[in-house]
Structures are given as C-alpha cells and as structure tokens.
C-alpha cells in the first residue's frame, strides 16, 4: 500500500461522512416525504444542502471506485467505516456532545476491525499465492 492509496481511503471516509451529514441537514429542512408523493425525493436535489451533499458523495464514489480497482470489496468496506468514528469524534471535540459508553465501545470495535483488516493483503491474489507473491 502506497501513501497515495491511503489518501484515496481517507478521501472516501471524509467525503462519505460529510456527504451524509449534508443530506440529513437538507432533508430535515424539507420535512417528511409521503409515500404517495415520492417525486419530492427528486425535487429535493435542488435544495442547496442536498446538492452539496450529492457533490461530496460523487467525490466519495470516485474514491470508492478507485479503491475497488486495486483492492477487494471485503478490504475496502471496513475501511469506509472509519467515517462513523470520524463523525463521533467530531461530535465530541467540535460540537461538545456527550457520547455514551455504548457508543465508545462501538468506536473501539470499529477501530479494532479496521486495524485487523489493515494488517492483511488488499487483494485476493496476494492471499492466494502466499508470501512468495510479495517477495
């Protein structure tokens, strides 16, 4: 794994979590969408918060596609979950919100999962061929 590839994973985490936050901000402002009037989900795209969220999610999609071109899906997926840790830490240190013990345990479990996957090879070929493939 090169520094550039770690940057791609970091871009995925930041763009994905901030994009979701902006979508929520926009959809909260617009109010509930009725099942019978689902076309409001399309007009919601013109809300500035939702539009900014979509732009960030396009950035996430580009980084995600790039990561999947050199790593397995089961390697990339846990890495994306660092976004939840990122959001939780932002809410503690920037928004000064209280995070419960249960959520701290969740953060520790996610970080442990990412640490476990981080020590493995990023593609199936390298696992299948064993240490010789790395030499």
């Amino acid at each position, binding site marked *: 794994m090169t520094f*550039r590839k770690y940057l*791609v994973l970091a871009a995925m985490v930041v763009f994905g979590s901030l994009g*979701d*936050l902006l*979508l*929520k901000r926009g*959809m*909260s402002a*617009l*109010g*509930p*969408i009725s*099942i019978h009037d*689902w076309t409001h*989900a*399309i007009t*919601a795209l013109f809300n500035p918060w*939702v539009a900014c969220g979509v732009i960030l*999610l396009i950035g996430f*999609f580009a980084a*995600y*596609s*790039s990561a*999947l*071109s*050199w790593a*397995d*899906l*089961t*390697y990339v*997926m*846990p890495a994306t*979950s660092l976004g*939840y840790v990122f959001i*939780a830490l932002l809410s503690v240190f920037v928004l000064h919100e209280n995070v419960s013990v*249960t*959520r701290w*345990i*969740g*953060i*520790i*479990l*996610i*970080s*442990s*999962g*990412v640490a*476990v*996957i981080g*020590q*493995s090879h990023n593609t*199936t070929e390298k*696992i*299948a061929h064993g240490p010789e493939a790395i030499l």
Partner: protein
Amino acid sequence: MTLVYTWSTIVIMVLSTTVGDTLLARAMKQVGDLSELRRTRGILAVVKAAMLNLDMLAALFFFAVGFFTLLVSLSWADLSLVVPATASLTFVTNAIAAKLFLRENVDGRRWAANILVCIGVALLAS
C-alpha cells in the same frame, strides 16, 4: 407505522447497496487499477473505460435506487439510525456476496474484521 416504513427503506437500501457494490467491484476488476490507467492513458481513458462497462452502469442504477430510498428514509428518521443500521447489515451481506459472486478469499481475519465493524456500527446506532 413510521418505524415499519423506516425499516422497509433500510432493507431496500441494504439489498440495492449490496448488488451495487458487488457489480462495481466486478467492473473495477475488469477495468484494472484506475490510477495506473490515468498515469499511462489519461483521465479521459479512465472515464471512458468506466462508463462503457455494463456492470458499472448496472451498479449506478442500483446506487441510484439506494440513494433515493436514503433521501426518503432521512426525511422520516435520524441519520444516526438509518446510516449505521444500513451499513452494519451491508457489511454482512457484502462479505457473503464477495465470497459467492466475486470469489474473494474471505478468510478468518476478514470475517473477524467485518463482524467487529458490524457490531461496532450497530452499537453506534443504538
């Protein structure tokens, strides 16, 4: 009733994201390393290779279904429930799909990592 609607949208999102992720991973394996392709043939070659791939187009369709379902779901429920609940279930379904359809070597370490993250995300949502 809102709870039933919310969980129905979560199930739709889990299914559409899993199918989309699997198709996207297959498309990217067919295209090859994007950064290498960009270095040798330029950014237009990357866009062309990605956009002419049928798996990629099918993946975009399923992501669009998931995206609009997310918008509807977010108008009813909290971000802290919808996104982590969808993500934690998707970790399990994606690992199964990767093993069955992408023939990835999902060894003990990868299962352990996926299950740790799945439980962690579920706890964050609680």
